[in-house]
Structure formats: structure tokens, C-alpha cells
């Protein structure tokens, strides 16, 4: 177990390092200078030079990189160009909304995805399979934010079951928090669920066509046991392997649907910072997101190693 964690960390840490370097170098890709971008049309060579000096953009790259990594180690991601607030603080403020939505979405996605995938995978070719699999094809094609709009109109405006404006902090009103999370989680979860369902179905079909299924059936093990004990565990192996990608997709989708549900998460922060070219904030959000994805992948890799003995380090 400890060996497995170390082994996987050996992959995750370099990945995180490379991402950090890439994120650091983002500002060097801006045509002209970030200072010119901030100043906009009012920019003069003098004012640009002045702003560059204020922001430390005029210092040599190596010096800035050392400072950047030094900051990372102490949790300091710099200050926002526009608001002058520490980026770390801004991110911390936005994290609860985003994490709540992702958590809710992931739960819905797994329940729907694995449920539908196992159900259809054990009865391929039947009417139920065709209808549900058709549903997953549709689920993948639907723009998530549009689905969110429709769900809001139906469940909030028309039926009045759920609040239109979603976010309530957990500490303020746990029930309100939960109610506000239902529609965003459902929107995220239906999308993610469609992807997971397709993978699970394919994995289930191939697991049930595998020779060991025959061996156990021929040895008199009941069909239910073969399907649900042996089939599902084998099917989970490829599904788990791609769950990290699904998680990354869901984060991206959450950034877009935040707008539909007026959620004060990382997405809206990223959006305003993108439009305002507030690079420290953009860098902060990108780095935080990448760290989240890498951390979840690390966790999933460890689970993968636990479920699949062949993936354990020798």
C-alpha cells in the first residue's frame, strides 16, 4: 500500500512541477506585455514601464521564477492586478462553491453512470439497453449549460420545487446548501453519467464475454454472482482508469454552468479574470485546477492499484 502510494506520487509530483512551470511562463506568452493589456488604450510607453516596475515584470525571468516557486511553497500566489487582493485569498473564497458542485456532480455521475452502464451492459441488445444507451448518446451531445437552463426553468420557475438562485454556504444553512446544489449537481451528473455509463457498458459487455465468465458459469456459480461480483469488479478496472478524465471534464463543465446557477465559484472568477486579463488570478485558477485533477488522479490510481493486482508495483 505504502509502496503503491510512493510509486504513484513518483508520477504526480513531476507532473505538478511541469504544470507549475508552464503556468509560470504564461505571462511571457502575452503579445506585448501584460502591463499593456492592463492599461488598455490608455497605455503609453512610460505608463507601461511604470506598471511593469510596480508588478515586478521587468525583473529577469529566473529571478521571477525563483520568487514564484518560493511563493508556491508558502501558499502565496501573488496579488491580483485589478483588485490588489492576494490571489490565494480569492481562490479560497471561491473554493467551497466549486467543490460542492463537483462533489455533488461526481456523486450523481457515478450513481447514474455505473448504474446505467451495469444495467445495460448485462442485457445488451434489449429494448431497455437501446433506449438507455440512446439516452447516453443524447446526454453527451447536449450542451450542459443549456440542460442547466432547461432544468432551472422546469424545476425552479414552473414547478417551484427548487430555488432559482443556487448558492447558500453550508455553514449558513445546510438544508439550503443542499437544495441549491440539487440542480447544478444534476446538470453536471447527467453529463458525466452519460460518459461513465458508456464506458461501464462497454467494459461490462467485454467482462461478461471473457473466458473466466464461462469458467465460473460452467462451475455452477449463479448468474447473478457472475454478473455482479465478477463482472462488475472487472468492468470497474477500465472505468476507474478513465475516471480522472471524467473528473477533469466535470471541472470544466462546472466553470460554464456556474453562470446558469449564479454560483460564486472558481469559474466566474476565471471568467472575469480572463476578460480583464488579470494574469495572477488566471495562473492561480489554472494551477489550483490542475492540482485538483492531479490529486484526484493520484487517488484514483491508488484505487486502481488496489482493485487491479496487475497494476501494483512489483
Amino acid at each position, binding site marked *: 500500500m505504502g509502496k503503491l502510494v510512493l510509486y504513484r506520487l513518483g508520477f504526480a509530483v513531476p507532473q505538478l512541477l511541469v*504544470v507549475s512551470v508552464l503556468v509560470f511562463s504564461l505571462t511571457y506568452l502575452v503579445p506585448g506585455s501584460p502591463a499593456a493589456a492592463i492599461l488598455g488604450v490608455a497605455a503609453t510607453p512610460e505608463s507601461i514601464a511604470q506598471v511593469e516596475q510596480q508588478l515586478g515584470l521587468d525583473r529577469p525571468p529566473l529571478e521571477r521564477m525563483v520568487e514564484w516557486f518560493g511563493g508556491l511553497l508558502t501558499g502565496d500566489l501573488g496579488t491580483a492586478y485589478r483588485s490588489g487582493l492576494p490571489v490565494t485569498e480569492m481562490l479560497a473564497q471561491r473554493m467551497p462553491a466549486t467543490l460542492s458542485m463537483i462533489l455533488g456532480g461526481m456523486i450523481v455521475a457515478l450513481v447514474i453512470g455505473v448504474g446505467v452502464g451495469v444495467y445495460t451492459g448485462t442485457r445488451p*441488445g434489449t429494448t431497455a439497453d437501446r433506449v438507455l444507451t440512446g439516452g447516453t448518446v443524447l446526454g453527451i451531445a447536449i450542451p450542459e449549460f*443549456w440542460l442547466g437552463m432547461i432544468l432551472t426553468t422546469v424545476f425552479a*420557475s414552473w414547478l417551484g420545487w427548487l430555488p432559482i438562485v443556487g448558492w447558500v454556504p453550508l455553514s449558513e444553512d445546510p438544508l439550503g446548501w443542499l437544495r441549491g446544489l440539487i440542480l447544478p449537481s444534476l446538470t453536471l451528473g447527467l453529463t458525466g453519467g452519460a460518459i461513465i455509463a458508456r464506458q461501464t457498458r462497454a467494459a461490462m459487455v467485454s467482462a461478461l464475454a471473457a*473466458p473466466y465468465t464461462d469458467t465460473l458459469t460452467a462451475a455452477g456459480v449463479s448468474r447473478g454472482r457472475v454478473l455482479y461480483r465478477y463482472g462488475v469488479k472487472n468492468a470497474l478496472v477500465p472505468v476507474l482508469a478513465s475516471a480522472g478524465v471524467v473528473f477533469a471534464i466535470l471541472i470544466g*463543465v462546472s466553470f460554464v454552468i456556474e453562470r446558469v446557477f449564479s454560483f460564486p465559484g472558481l469559474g466566474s472568477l476565471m471568467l472575469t479574470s*480572463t476578460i480583464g*486579463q488579470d494574469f495572477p488570478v488566471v495562473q492561480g485558477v489554472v494551477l489550483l485546477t490542475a492540482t485538483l485533477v492531479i490529486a484526484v488522479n493520484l487517488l484514483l490510481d491508488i484505487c486502481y492499484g488496489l482493485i487491479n493486482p496487475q497494476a501494483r508495483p512489483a
Partner: protein
Amino acid sequence: MTVPTVGAPAASSPTARQAAGPRQLWGRLRHQPLTLVSAIVVLGVAVVAAFAPLLAPYAPDDTDFTAVFSPPTADHLLGTDDLGRDILSQLIFAARTAMVVAGGSVLVAMLIGVPFGLILGYKGGWYDRIGSRGMDVADALPGIMIGFVVIAILGRGMLILIFAIGLIFSMNFARVVRAITLTERKKLYVESARVSGLSHRQVIFGQVLPNLAGPLAVQGAVFLGNAIKVEAALSFLGLGLPDDQPSWGGMLRFAAEHQADHPLMAIPPGVAIVVTVLAFNLLGDGINDALSGRRRTRRKARKAQRLTLAAVEAARATSRAEHDARVAAAVAERDVVLDLRGVSVALDRPAGEAVPLLDDVHLTVRRGEVLGLLGESGSGKSMLARATLGMLPAGVRLEGGRVLLDGTDLTAMSDKRMRAIRGSRLAVVFQNPQSNLSPVHTVGRQLTDPIRAHHGMSKRDARARAAELLELVGVDDVQRRLDQYPHEFSGGMAQRVAIAIAIAGDPDVLILDEATSALDVTTQSQVLDLVLDLRERLGMAVIAITHDLGVVAETCDRVAVMYAGQIVEKGAIDAVFDRPRHPYTAALLAAHPAIDRDVDRLPTIPGRVPLAGEWPLGCHFAGRCAFATERCLEAPVALTEDVRCVRTDEVVLEGAHHD
């Protein structure tokens, strides 16, 4: 040497065989109605986009303040928005944006991804290692995030949007291209092309790229759909095109602002996106299916016709009468444990015809005997094992005959009762040693589950029994071995475990379905010895299904020879091998290299086993038989006196040479 047409020897190039030709592809696509509909939708959207100014009733930015938020009317078929702009016209012009951005970004994605993937796959080594790690890093970011970053750096605009979306999907293309290039590079013909002096460029353009065309078309179609979704999302957030450029996402942005009062405004652009994306995705899936030859079969098969030809019935009646007469005595003495009577199995084709897979198989197994079932691949041996156990694959059904186990007909049994039979009365070991066991469960679990299914033991007792069984099949250090996974076992050891699973329920008949074929010779004979030993100890009968005459000669008491779904000859092992009465048996024996014989070249039987569905009405072997005459093909041949040949008394056949 300049070769203008790279990969010139097209006729002999294996590339032609690999990918489905355009004509073949079209042939398959024609039978995929959903794919055709999708293609028509895509084409329709493209036409609308191209002729938007002609088709749209208004200009997209025509405002009409007398008709703000108009519901659908004759003037405005889909109504108007907050500025009185015609929604239908905006929708039509937005199709143009969607197609241009999607097309452009997929082009960008290919321009970046294809060369990148080609380099990684073709060069391999460090290029591949570093590049692949790079793709993993890209995986850590949600695609739309890359869009955000590009737009943050470069600003908004059509070309930037195209570049941003293209960048998002470029790694997907790179991955696909890398994987395919890697496999292509390893193939023999690329190797030989390299040896024969073609340049890298010639190999890539002549050999690798043609094989990429299909997968790239699939990916292209799917990512066109995805690009439309991403473009809509970015436009919805206000990061896409300037607001005066109509786009579906932009329309939804306005709709969201007025969602509370005019919720229906969100419908037309949303439906447009869903339909277009769906069409692209289904088109991609369809091309993929057509390329891989996986045709979507029409589900509703017409009632399958039965093989009711009078001649067939006559032959079957003869075989049946013969069989009954020959086994009557043994059955009366309760010496026969398993009795297959005229078992016929057919595959139901979607078009309605039934393809016979097993034809009129009569076979008896006596208590404690070892019966060899011999035949080339494609003769139906394994299907016979499955038919016996009631484990026919989907779409295959028992067309006739009975499977009698101690006189009880298994074919009439319910699934539940059949399950009780499997493992406890009849058991089977399949061919592949490793994949016979679930890779993610311990050997112990896979042994205890069948044990508990049969004996209803506690977990602890079942484990003790599992340990006994493992010891019985010759596995050492059983307590440790029980907690191990199949990949920790060698092929021979894994097959011993599979045998232990099979005998967990103390079966009366153990079927070995090519169970030793994948093992090396030494291991093979060890496993066979084990089975013979188990037979002695447990008193079970064994059916050894094999294509290996050596195995039959060494282990079996009796043998049945199968050819193209039929038993052509059976009898005691010495009788059949010394004096074969069917030309096929003789041919098999002649093709088997005896150790003591001087063999200049391996004699083989010319031709191949005819595929199911291509069997002649008469003798199935006639096409390859040196003794065949017209008479052999006239009518179905019955199994008489344990041989299925009309000329058996006329021809002189040579048996095996003993030392």
C-alpha cells in the same frame, strides 16, 4: 531513385487489405440508416451555413422594435428576441459561425496533433516518453480551461477562437495518431519497407498515413461535434465572437438573461446545437462501425427457418436408429453417463436464415472413460461442449436433439436446475490458461465460490476444501497460493487451478476444451497426467476436445472425429487409428508426423474446413476428399456403423504407423 507514387506496389501492399476500401465502406454504410440520417443532417446544416443569406428571411441584426419578444408568427416563424431580431434568421447565420469555427478548429487540431503524434509514434524512444508525459500534463487541465487561457492571453476574435478550440483537441488527435503509428510501425510490412530502402517520408506517407485516414475521419467527425459544443459554451460565457456575430451560444447567452420571462427563447438555439452535435457524433460512430466491419444488425429477426429437407430428415432418422441400437445395451446396463442424441445447433442470422453449426451429433460417454473429440478448428468441437452444458452463445440455439445425463434430458431443464448440474455433474475447462480466471479476484475466491454454490459450506470450510483441491491438482504452498491472483501463476499452474475449479463440485463428466493446447509440451503432458490421475481417483469420465492426435493417442480410450459440424467417425482408439474407415480420419492421420517416420515434408490436408453456412448438402468433406465422387454430394450422409461415408466399404485407407 525518385519514386513519384510513394508506396507504389499498391496491389501487393498489405495496406489495401488492412483498411476497408472505399467501395466496401460505402457498402457497409448503406446498411446503417442512422449513419445516413446523420450524414444528411450534417450536410443540411452545412448547406444552411453556406447559403445563409439566401435562406434567412431577415438579416441577423435587423431590429424591429414593434415586434420585441414576439411569439412565433407568420412573419417570425420562431419569434423575435429583446431587440425584435428574427430568431430563425439568427439561427441560420449562427449555423455558419458554428460550422466555420468547428471546421477551422478541427483543422488546427489536426495540423498540430497529427505531426506530433506521428513523431512520437514513429520515432519512439525518448521522443515518445517525453511527448507522452507532455500529453499527460495536458490531461490535468479541463479542455475549456485551455480555451480560457488562450483567450486571456490573446483576446477575443474568430481566429483566436479557432486556435483555442483547435489547441484543446490537438492532443486527442496526437494520441490517436501516436497509437496507430506505433502499431503500424511494428507491423512487418513497414519493417520490410524500411529494409527495402524506402525513406522515412515514403514510409509515413505510403504506409502509415493511409491507415490513419479512417480513424482520423472518425475522430474528425466526433470532434467537429465537440468543437461546436465548446464554441457554444465559450460564446455563452461571452468569450467567443464579438456580440454582433450571431452564434448559437451567444443566442443562449441572451436567452439566459431573459430566462425568467421568456424561457422558450432558449429552445431553438439549444435544439440546433443538440441536433448538430448529435449528428456529428453518430456519423463518427457510424464510420467507425463501418471501418471495423461491425455492422449494426437489425434486431428483429424473422422466424428462423428450420432445416426440414426430407433428405436431411431421412439421414437423421437413419443415424438415430443406428445410435439407439448400438447404445441400447450400454444404456440398459446404466453404463452410459452422457448420451448426446442427434444434437443440432444453429446460429440465427438477423436476415432470418439459420446457419447450422452442429449437425446431428450422436455421442455416448461411458462412466470413467476418456473420450477424445478430434477435429480441426472450425469443426464445432467447442460448440458441442457448450451445447452439452446449455451454455450456447447468444443467437445460437439448439435446433434439435437431446442431451441425456443418466437418462435425464438436460435440454428440457430450467436454467436454475441446469445451474445445479453445471459443476456438480458436468464441468468444463476452457483453453486459455490465464483468461480462464478473473484477473482481479484471488484464486481462493474463485475456488470457494463454486464450492459454496454446490455444497453450501461456511467460508472457512470452503477455504479448507479449496486448499484440498489445489493440493489435489498439484499446486504447492496452497495457503499462500489461495491469496494470490491469477497473474502470479504460470500457464500450467493457472490451468491446474481452472481444473480445480471445474472439479470443485465432483462432476461425473469433465470436458477439457482444448485445455492443454496453449501449454508447452512438457506442461501439457503433466496436466494430462493429472487429469488421468484424477479420473482414476474420482471416477469421472473425461471428454478431451483437441486437434492434437498425439493427445488423443496417449490419453483416450475411444475417439470421435468431427468435421464441419458432424461426427464422421468414432470408435475405440486402436481401431480408428489403425484402420480408419473415413477418408478424413485417414487424412488426419497421414498429416500427423509420426516420430519414427522419415518425413521430408509435412503432409497436410489440402484446402480448409468449409465455414458454417457453406456446408454442402451431401458429405461435408467431399470438397477435400481424394475419393469423392458425384454420389458423395447427392444426399446427406447418415452415420452408419459409426462412420459417415458412403464409400467406406469401397476405399482402402491407411492407418497410423506404429513403431
